[in-house]
């Protein structure tokens, strides 16, 4: 009589989970999480619309879109950054005058990475209000006026500041109503996010930054703009 086959051995297996397996599983899980974070956070393209005078793909708000063959100046600011406030107070008007005289093409790209500092997403809301103000045709003056009211970093703006600022630069009637609902409903929030990403994509990682035809204005010249209201012309000439 033939012997029955021996029962399969259970003890032959090494006990406990083998380190190789743990390592492999860990590596796969980590890679998976990394990919998920990447997919979730990479954004869905810069396709939000920003209303009047807003360039596509988060390209910012143009003050004077119709000029040609002049240096293109882009001002990157966060409404909560103290040095942006100082820049606007010192050189904001000179820069706007240069745009109105047709000497430069002026674009604002508003970043909102200081949102976390205020607890009420103050930078985003201010940037949204600025996009709304462009719809009302009040863009550069509105930006200047809001920066004049800039609270201490971390305190944040109330919506009322934006409404008052719009009124003080002459937005009224139906336009004021539209502006108000645009601010309260944060109509351009997606565009505001796109501006932030566009700024990073342009290599701008801090505010205030000014570029002339894509070239960033150097530290020294930025210091001049922050301290001397008449320096913009010479800085522009040096940077070109």
């Amino acid at each position, binding site marked *: 009589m033939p012997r029955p086959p021996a029962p399969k051995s259970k003890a032959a297996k090494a006990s406990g989970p083998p380190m190789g397996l*743990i390592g492999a599983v860990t590596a796969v899980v980590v890679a998976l999480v990394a990919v998920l974070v990447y997919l979730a956070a990479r954004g869905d393209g810069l396709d939000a619309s920003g209303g009047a005078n807003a360039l596509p793909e988060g390209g910012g708000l143009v003050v004077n879109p119709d000029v040609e063959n002049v240096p293109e100046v882009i001002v990157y600011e966060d409404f909560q950054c103290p040095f942006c406030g100082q820049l606007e107070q010192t050189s904001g008007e000179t820069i706007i005058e240069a745009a109105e005289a047709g000497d430069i093409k002026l674009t604002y790209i508003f970043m909102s990475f200081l949102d976390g500092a205020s607890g009420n997403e103050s930078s985003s809301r201010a940037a949204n209000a600025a996009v709304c103000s462009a719809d009302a045709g009040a863009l550069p003056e509105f930006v200047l006026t809001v920066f004049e009211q800039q609270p201490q970093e971390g305190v944040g703006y109330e919506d009322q500041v934006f409404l008052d600022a719009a009124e003080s630069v002459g937005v009224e009637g139906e336009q004021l109503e539209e502006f108000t609902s645009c601010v309260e409903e944060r109509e351009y929030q997606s565009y505001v996010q796109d501006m932030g990403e566009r700024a990073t994509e342009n290599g701008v990682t*801090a505010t205030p930054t000014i570029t002339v035809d894509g070239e960033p204005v150097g530290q020294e010249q930025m210091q001049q703009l922050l301290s001397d209201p008449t320096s913009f012309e010479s800085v522009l000439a040096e940077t070109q």
Partner: protein
Amino acid sequence: MSATSVSESRTAPEGGAGRRARVLDLVGLLARLVLGGVLLVAGYLKLVDLDGAVRSVVAYDLFDYEVAKFIGLTLPVLEVAVGVLLILGLLTRAAGFGGTALMVVFVAGIASAWARGLSIDCGCFGTGGPVAPGATRYLEEIVRDIALAAAGAWLLVRPRTPVSVDTLLTRRSRYERND
């Protein structure tokens, strides 16, 4: 090498070799917790502000935006993972290698920013980007990262540490094997 110290610590309970092994054990534990803790905190601070993490990488001005974005979004996951493994003492040798590799890359990045005359914060703890020209702390950042790389290298050479999941697992399997 680690096998010798294991037997030493078992067979010489009060001798000099046993004490030496215990000291080495403690150094390893310290290396694990310091490197793991720093990586965990650094990764966490980036995960809660991923846009900031991407900006930090962009500020090095080394990669195309899409590449910088990929690094900025995935690096914090890697840091947290290596940090957790080190704190748990799981896969200690591999995690020590991972930690060392990360630190070597960081040192290279910081050195390159320094050499090119950039004025940036390393962004190691999620607050990267330009700083005033006089406010860079490259040397300090590099020294710190080299010390952390050394901690990782220690674990790569001598991964056996007390209070670790690795020890629990090897003990269990040894026990079952003898059973």
